C-alpha cells in the first residue's frame, strides 16, 4: 500500500486556503445525521469535540479520567506559540513555519507545519474570546515571552499554567455543547478497540471503568486524540494514566505508526529519588535562562558529594565544570532540549553525577542571584558591595520570576534552591512520533483520524517549546473540523450504524477475551513490576543515546518480557467492577508491543536527528549527525501480527521551501 499524504498542490502559503475552498462540505441539516466519536479530551480532543458539536455533528466524547478537564494537557507549563507579531520583532507565519521545521531537525512535513503556523494566530483570538486569562501587560494587551530555538518573542502564556488555562477553555466550550446535548460525554471510559466495517472506522469498544461493562459505540467517524506514549518508559513527565492503548489498537487494525523512535527527553526535571518513584516532575525550561548547569570537575569531588561528605556549595569555581558553557559557548545553557539532555547524561555516565543515584547535575542560581542583587542594589542606591544585602535583593528577584517552581522543588526535594543548587536530570517528556496521518489528519484507516500528540505530523524529530499546545488546538479547532467534512460528505444518507453488526460482536469478544485472560491468569507479579522492567530496558537501551547493539538487545528483551507478562502477570479483582489493576494491565500490554516497535524503528534509522541519537552517528565533537540522503523520510510501520514483523513504508519528505542544513549551537 502506497502512502498518499494528500498534500494539495500550489505554493505553500496558499495550499490550506485553496484546499479549504474546494473540499466537500456537509450541509447543516445533514450534520445532525452524522455521529462522530472523539477519544481523549485534551487540547486536541476537547477542542475537536466542542467544534464538531458546534458545527452540528452528534459527538460522543470519551476520556478515562473522571472529567474531561483532567487530561494531561493540563500540566503544560510554559506557553503557546503564535505568529501574532504583537512585539513587532519581525515574526511572521513564515518564521514560525521555518523555526518549527528547523527545530524538528528537518523531519516534519512542510505543508502541515505551514498550516499550523497559519492558524496559530486564530488560536489566540479564539482562546481570548472564550475567556482564557492569558498574561497581560499593564496597558491591557497580551504579553509574550521568548522560548528556546527562536529569535522572536511569540509565546503567549498564563503564568506557569498555560496548558491548564487552554484546556479549561476547550473544556468550557465542551461544557456548552454537553449542556445543549450535542456532546454526549463518557467519563471514566476507556477505548479498548476500534471497529472497522467495510474497511471504514465505524465505532469503538469501550470499557466503563466504574462498572467494568464492555460497551459498543458506533459512529460515522472516529477521532483519536489520546496523546503520546511516553509512559512506555514507566518514568516520564506524563500522567500516570497516560497511555497508548487507543493509538496502538488502531495501529493493530491498520493505522500505520510513524517514527516511534522520536522521543523528547526534557533536560530540567527533578531527579529520581529511589525505587519507589512513580513519575517525574518537570521544571519549566525557562529556568535555564538564569540557572547555570554544572557538575564537579574532579571525580573525587563528585564521589564525595554522592556520599554526602561534601556539599555543592563547598566547591570553588575552579572545581566546577559548567559543561554546557564549555561545550557550546555561543548558546551556553540555552541549547535546545535534546542537546542539553545528552550533555548531562554524558557527564553522569562518566561518573560526575551528583545525587545518591549518580544521575543528577546541578542547576545553580547563585550567579543569577548575585547579578540581579547587584543591579537592584545599584538601582536602589544601596551598597552593592554588601554580600548579604546583594543576596537578599537577588533572591527576591529570582523569587518573583520562578517562585512557584522553587516552591515546587522545595516540596519535592526538601532542599532550598535559593541557597543550594537545584539538582536536575533529563526525563522523557513528549513523543513526536505517533499515528501516521495524511494532510486531512486521517490515518490509513478510512474514517479514523488522529490529532494532537497522538499523530506524528508537525514536530519532526524534535519539538520546540510551546509548540505542543499550538498543535493540539490547531488540529482540534481549525483543521479537523474542516477536513472531516470532506470525508463524511458521502455518508449523509447512511443513517445510524447498528452496533449489532458482526464486526462489533467480534471486536467486543476479543476485548472480553483479553480481559478474562488477565483476570484468570493468577500470576505472581503485579502489572507495575513488568511496567518498571519495560521502563528500565527502554531507558537504558532506547533512551537518550542508542546504539545498534543495545537496540537489538532491547528488541529481544522486550519480546521476552512480553511473553513473561502474559504468563505471569497477576491482576486481582474481577472484570465487572472498578479495577485499576486491570486498567493498567490492558495499557501495559500495549506498551510492551509498542516498545518493541519503538526499538525497531530506532535501530533502522541509521542517523542521529533531534530526539533520536545514535551513538554510531555523531560528529567528532559528539554532535548529532543527520543523513538527509538516506533518511529524509517518515518511517510509517504497518502492523503484521507482531511488532517484529512490522513492515516499513516510507513517505519521502520533500523540502521545497526550506533548505536542509546541519544544526549548530556552538
Amino acid at each position, binding site marked *: 500500500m502506497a502512502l498518499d499524504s494528500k498534500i494539495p498542490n500550489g505554493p505553500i502559503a496558499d495550499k490550506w486556503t485553496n484546499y479549504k475552498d474546494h473540499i466537500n462540505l456537509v450541509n447543516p441539516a445533514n450534520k445532525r445525521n452524522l455521529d462522530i466519536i472523539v477519544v481523549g479530551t485534551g487540547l486536541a480532543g476537547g477542542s475537536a469535540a466542542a467544534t464538531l458539536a458546534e458545527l452540528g455533528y452528534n459527538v460522543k466524547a470519551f476520556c478515562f479520567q473522571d472529567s474531561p478537564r483532567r487530561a494531561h494537557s493540563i500540566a503544560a507549563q510554559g506557553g503557546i506559540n503564535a505568529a501574532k507579531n504583537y512585539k513587532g520583532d519581525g515574526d511572521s507565519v513564515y518564521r514560525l513555519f521555518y523555526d518549527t521545521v528547523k527545530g524538528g531537525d528537518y523531519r516534519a512535513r512542510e505543508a502541515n507545519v505551514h498550516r499550523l503556523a497559519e492558524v496559530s494566530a486564530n488560536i489566540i483570538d479564539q482562546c481570548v474570546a472564550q475567556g482564557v486569562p492569558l498574561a497581560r501587560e499593564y496597558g491591557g494587551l497580551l504579553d509574550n515571552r521568548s522560548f528556546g530555538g527562536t529569535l522572536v518573542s511569540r509565546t503567549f502564556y498564563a503564568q506557569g499554567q498555560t496548558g491548564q488555562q487552554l484546556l479549561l477553555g476547550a473544556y468550557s466550550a465542551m461544557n456548552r455543547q454537553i449542556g445543549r446535548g450535542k456532546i454526549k460525554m463518557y467519563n471514566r471510559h476507556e477505548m479498548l478497540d476500534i471497529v472497522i466495517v467495510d474497511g471504514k472506522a465505524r465505532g469503538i469498544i469501550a470499557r466503563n471503568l466504574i462498572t467494568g461493562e464492555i460497551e459498543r459505540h458506533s459512529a460515522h467517524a472516529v477521532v483519536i486524540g489520546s496523546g503520546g506514549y511516553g509512559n512506555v518508559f514507566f518514568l516520564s513527565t506524563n500522567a500516570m494514566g497516560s497511555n497508548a492503548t487507543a493509538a496502538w489498537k488502531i495501529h493493530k487494525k491498520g493505522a500505520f505508526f510513524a517514527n516511534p523512535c522520536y522521543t523528547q527527553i526534557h533536560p530540567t526535571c527533578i531527579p529520581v529519588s529511589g525505587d519507589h518513584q512513580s513519575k517525574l516532575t518537570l521544571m519549566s525550561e525557562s529556568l535555564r535562562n538564569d540557572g547555570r548547569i554544572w557538575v564537579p570537575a574532579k571525580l573525587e569531588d563528585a564521589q564525595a558529594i554522592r556520599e554526602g561528605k561534601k556539599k555543592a556549595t563547598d566547591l570553588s569555581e575552579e572545581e566546577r565544570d559548567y559543561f554546557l558553557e564549555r561545550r557550546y559557548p555561543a548558546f551556553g545553557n540555552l541549547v535546545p532540549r535534546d542537546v542539553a539532555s545528552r550533555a548531562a547524561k554524558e557527564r553522569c555516565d562518566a561518573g560526575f553525577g551528583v545525587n545518591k543515584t549518580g544521575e543528577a547535575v546541578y542547576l545553580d542560581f547563585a550567579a543569577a542571584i548575585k547579578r540581579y542583587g547587584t543591579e537592584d542594589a545599584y538601582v536602589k542606591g544601596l551598597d552593592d558591595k554588601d554580600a548579604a544585602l546583594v543576596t537578599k535583593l537577588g533572591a527576591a528577584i529570582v523569587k518573583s520570576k520562578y517562585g512557584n517552581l522553587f516552591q515546587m522543588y522545595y516540596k*519535592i526535594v526538601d532542599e532550598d534552591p535559593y541557597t543550594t543548587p537545584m539538582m536536575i536530570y533529563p526525563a522523557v517528556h513528549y513523543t513526536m512520533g505517533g499515528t501516521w496521518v495524511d494532510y486531512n489528519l486521517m490515518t490509513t484507516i478510512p474514517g479514523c483520524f488522529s490529532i494532537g500528540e497522538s499523530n506524528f505530523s508537525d514536530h519532526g524529530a524534535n519539538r520546540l517549546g510551546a509548540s505542543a499546545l499550538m498543535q493540539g488546538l490547531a488540529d482540534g479547532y481549525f483543521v479537523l473540523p474542516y477536513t472531516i467534512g470532506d470525508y463524511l460528505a458521502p455518508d449523509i444518507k447512511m443513517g445510524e450504524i447498528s452496533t449489532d453488526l458482526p464486526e462489533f460482536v467480534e471486536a467486543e469478544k476479543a476485548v472480553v477475551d483479553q480481559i478474562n485472560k488477565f483476570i484468570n491468569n493468577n500470576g505472581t507479579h503485579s502489572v507495575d513490576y513488568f511496567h518498571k522492567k519495560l521502563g528500565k530496558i527502554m531507558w537504558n537501551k532506547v533512551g537518550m543515546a542508542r546504539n545498534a547493539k543495545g537496540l537489538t538487545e532491547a528488541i529481544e528483551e522486550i519480546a521476552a518480557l512480553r511473553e513473561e507478562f502474559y504468563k505471569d502477570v497477576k491482576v486481582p*479483582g474481577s472484570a465487572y467492577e472498578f479495577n485499576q489493576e486491570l486498567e493498567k494491565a490492558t495499557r501495559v500490554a500495549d506498551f510492551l508491543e509498542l516498545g518493541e516497535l519503538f526499538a525497531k524503528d530506532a535501530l533502522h534509522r541509521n542517523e542521529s536527528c533531534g530526539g533520536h541519537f545514535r551513538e554510531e552517528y555523531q560528529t567528532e565533537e559528539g554532535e548529532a549527525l543527520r543523513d538527509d540522503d538516506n533518511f529524509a523520510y517518515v518511517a510509517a510501520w504497518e502492523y503484521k501480527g507482531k511488532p517484529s514483523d512490522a513492515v516499513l513504508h516510507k513517505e519521502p519528505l520533500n523540502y521545497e521551501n526550506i533548505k536542509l542544513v546541519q544544526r549548530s549551537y556552538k
Partner: protein
Amino acid sequence: MKLTLKIWRQKNAQDKGGIVEYPIDGIEPDMSFLEMLDVLNEQLINRGEEPVAFDHDCREGICGMCSLFINGEAHGPDRGVTTCQLHMRMFKDGDTIFIEPFRAKAFPVIKDLVVDRSSFDRIQHAGGFISVNTSGNTIDANTIPINKHDADKSFDAAACIGCGACVATCKNSSAMLFVSAKVSQYALLPQGKVEAVDRVLNMVHQMDLEGFGNCTNTGACEIECPKGISLENIARMNREYLAASLKG
C-alpha cells in the same frame, strides 16, 4: 518509617464500607503520599489481597484527580498542595494515619477512596463557559484591552483545579468556592460579562440541585484549597447573584 494506616475500604457504591487497619514498614520520607500507597498496594497484591482504589493521574498537582481526606484534612496536613505533592516527611515514624474519601452527598463513593465528582461537571455544563463558536473569524485578541489587575484576578480564580477539597473540608459540604471561582473568572472579564446574569443563576441553581450544603463562611475551603482560591470569589458570586436576582 513505620506507620499504621487506617483506610476506608468500600467494595462499591452499594457496599456499606468501613475502616481497615494496615501496618506498613519501610516508608521513606522522600516518598510522596501516593507513592506510599503504591508500596502498600504492591504488598497487598503480592499477599493476594485487593489493592486500595484511589484516584490520581498527573502526580504534579495540576489535574485535580487525586483527593483523599488524610488525618482529618483534605489533601493532608501540608498547605498549598494536593495529595500527590504531599510527602511522607510531613509524618513521623510510628504515626497513625486516617485515610478517607472526600465525603459529601454530592460526591458518592465509587470504591474505597474513589468518589464521583461529576456534580462539578454538571454545574459547569449549566453555565461554565462563554457562548462563542470556533470560527477563525473572532476579533483579534488585542482588540479589547483588559485591565491587568482584573486579568490577574481572573487568572487567580481560573487556577482552580476542580479537585473538590473545598467541599470535602467544608463542614457543610458547600461547593461555593468552586462555583464562585468559575463565576468570578468570567465576571471579571469583558467577554464574560455579556452572559453574567444567566451564568450565575444557572450555575447556582444546578449547585443547589446537586445537594451541596450552604456556605457559612467558615473559610476552611480557602485554607485547604491547594491553589489558594480566595474567599473574595464567594463574595463576588454572592454579589453577582443578588444583582442577577434583582434583574431577573
